[in-house]
């Protein structure tokens, strides 16, 4: 189309022709469609950030090896209309049939709007936000319960510490972060009742300077194992390694950053979900709208043990992984918060229970405040 024909009608015609063509090829032969499924993946940061984005990029690389699947990727896409335009560009210019939007803030309004505008394209977003009553049927959510990985980290850390003080550098006091901190503490307390977790919030997802200061401050306060929940754990892990303390990772593998002190880390395994989507589309099946799980469904894993893990820690953490695979609960109630001593978790909850998604407290055993 030349730029002279710049009208809504021409635009709609092209779009209609394109979607009709796509629909035809879908209806005509499932195999033909499967053979040229294009998956568009949108990242909010750099793909090699040693963190959230890298975890997705590792899965994208695995997806590329699936025959008949083409992957197009775009990094550093902000949570503004830029992400809507990127998704649209992937659909219009690359022919993407499945969009994976990996950053939290992409969902409302951008993924929802695009799903309404392009009903033939499937959209999946990496956070548990899809609402079956409100949101388009061609949109959906996928999510990993990373707190299970942090629980295993906690078990390993609890037996690798000598000071019984563990440090946690966290971004914002939101539900998923709080669950990771609480799970880390519960894991540590399970094997070492004397252990406590000290937390420092930096206030934002990516604040390298403050993250380094926080890690250093925790070491000064006597913590000898440091972990974190920030977008890119690189700075925290490197700082801790430099200060000579042990570390647990977050999001992706940080093992190469800490050859001396790395214990293990909580990692997403998005590959399981992405390959599942590709297989469903290849088989002509409707994609699930909601996919979530943890270690029990191979959506979360732990980084192989590093030099910082003691033999006892390795044994206990391996057992903890087996427990989680058997769906043994992490949150065994009643549990109290760390501020008022009030019971906030009244009973034992299943690991994927939605009640835990609403967490807005730190449990007893964590030193720190969310306000």
């Amino acid at each position, binding site marked *: 189309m030349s730029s002279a024909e710049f009208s809504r009608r021409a635009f709609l015609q092209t779009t209609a022709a394109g979607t009709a063509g796509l629909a035809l090829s879908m209806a005509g032969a499932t195999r033909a469609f499967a053979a040229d499924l294009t998956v568009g993946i949108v990242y909010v940061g750099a793909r090699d950030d040693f963190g959230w984005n890298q975890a997705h990029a590792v899965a994208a690389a695995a997806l590329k090896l699936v025959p008949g699947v083409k992957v197009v990727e775009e990094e550093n896409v902000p949570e503004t209309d*830029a992400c809507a335009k990127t998704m649209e560009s992937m659909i219009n210019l690359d022919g993407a049939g499945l969009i994976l939007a990996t950053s*939290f803030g992409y969902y409302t309004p951008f993924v929802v709007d695009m799903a309404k505008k392009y009903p033939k394209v499937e959209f999946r977003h990496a956070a548990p936000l899809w609402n079956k009553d409100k949101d388009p049927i061609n949109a959906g959510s996928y999510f990993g319960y990373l707190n299970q990985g942090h629980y295993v980290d906690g078990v390993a850390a609890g037996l690798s510490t000598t000071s019984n003080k563990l440090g946690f550098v966290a971004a914002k006091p939101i*539900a998923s972060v709080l669950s990771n901190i609480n799970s880390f503490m519960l894991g540590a307390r399970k094997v070492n009742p004397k252990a406590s977790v000290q937390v420092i919030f930096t206030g934002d997802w990516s604040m390298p300077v403050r993250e380094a200061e926080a890690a250093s401050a925790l070491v000064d306060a006597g913590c000898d194992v440091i972990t974190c929940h920030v977008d890119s754990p690189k700075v925290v892990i490197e700082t801790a390694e430099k200060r000579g303390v042990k570390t647990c990772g977050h999001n992706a593998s940080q093992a190469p950053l800490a050859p001396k002190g790395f214990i293990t880390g909580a990692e997403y395994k998005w590959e399981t979900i992405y390959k599942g989507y590709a297989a469903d589309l290849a088989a002509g099946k409707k994609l699930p709208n909601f996919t979530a799980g943890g270690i029990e469904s191979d959506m979360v894993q732990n980084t192989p043990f590093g030099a910082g893990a003691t033999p006892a820690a390795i044994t206990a953490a391996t057992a903890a992984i087996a427990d989680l695979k058997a769906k043994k609960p992490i949150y065994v109630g009643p549990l109290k918060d760390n501020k008022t001593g009030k019971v906030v978790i009244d009973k034992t909850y299943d690991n994927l229970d939605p009640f835990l998604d609403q967490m807005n407290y730190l449990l007893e055993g964590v030193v720190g405040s969310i306000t």
Partner: protein
Amino acid sequence: MSTGSPAAGDLSDVAAAVKPPTAPAAGSDFALRLRANSEYVAIPAFALLMAALLFAVFLLAIGKSPIDFVDYVWRGGFGTAFSFQNTLQRSSPLILTALAVAIPARIGLIMIGAEGALVLGGFAAAAIAVPMVGFAPPIVTMPVMVLTAVVVGGVWVGIAGYLRYARGVNETISSLLLTYIGIAIMNFFVEGMMRDASNPNKPSTKPIGDAYMVGKIPGTDVHWGFAVGVLLSIALYFLMTRTTFGFAARVTGGNFRAALAQGLPVGKLIVSCAMIAGGCAGLAGFFEVAAIQGRANASLAAGYGFTGILVSFLARHNPLVVVPIAILFGGLVASGGLIQRRMELPDATVLVLQGLIFVVLLTSETLYGRFAIFNPKKGTDRT
């Protein structure tokens, strides 16, 4: 203001001394003016070409085809109806934030605080709209939002202007620092008392709702912010070149002490220009909230205010030229995604190109007045 105005007749010497580049030479005929003005087209065009050549060398050095690159920029940014609308939409906030740099630049101030005014303006618009949603109709709510955004943005940058005039505080530093304070204020409220409790994972204000959103320009996929930006560029061009206010502002920018000596209200001029600038950025914030996000949150600080600095400098702080430059940048950013996807180049590639354009264009500033072809009668038409 090429011929001077009667009201400011005494100032004609000063005016001539500080004549901005776009003003045609006084008293010359059309052909001479055309020749003189063509310098301002030819040199930037040459600079863009040089930047493109340098970038081609860069691409060849990393083993990629410059021809593919041009093809993808065209296809991703301009070549299809979708791409071009994508470009226009991306240029909309840049037009407004570039104006926020261009206007103070005319009075000799380098203000780089558009980001803060955008964030606070957008936040204020959302904050005032949220309690009005439900009982006040959109027709009432929207003007209130616009006004709030413009006033809050204006006051924010106005502070930097006032500090400059009254206390001699460097406006570049103060406007930049005010940006960080502005973002912190927004975060404070959005994460605190104004937080939407139903959204536990991304601190935001409550949504303003679809009925209160600004729509698209009919027949396009581009929101109204673009049209408003273009109209505002034209209006501000006239304000700065065809009115007494603009003339006085430029005199002040050219020679502060001369302006004082002439009795111009320098303080008012400086604060006004700063407030106009902040108003433009606040308006950009309004459109980010009312046309795109539907609520205020940390995504407002997306860096438009900082890209606007680049756009304004490349446009030589001319409000009219801001529009095409913003579209050029919008197109580069819009096509950046396609380039990443097809050529497997990192996201930073487009930044390399932007940087090259910036450096080459700034260097080309030294070429002005060096070519006889643009100055047919030296000494007579250029005072």
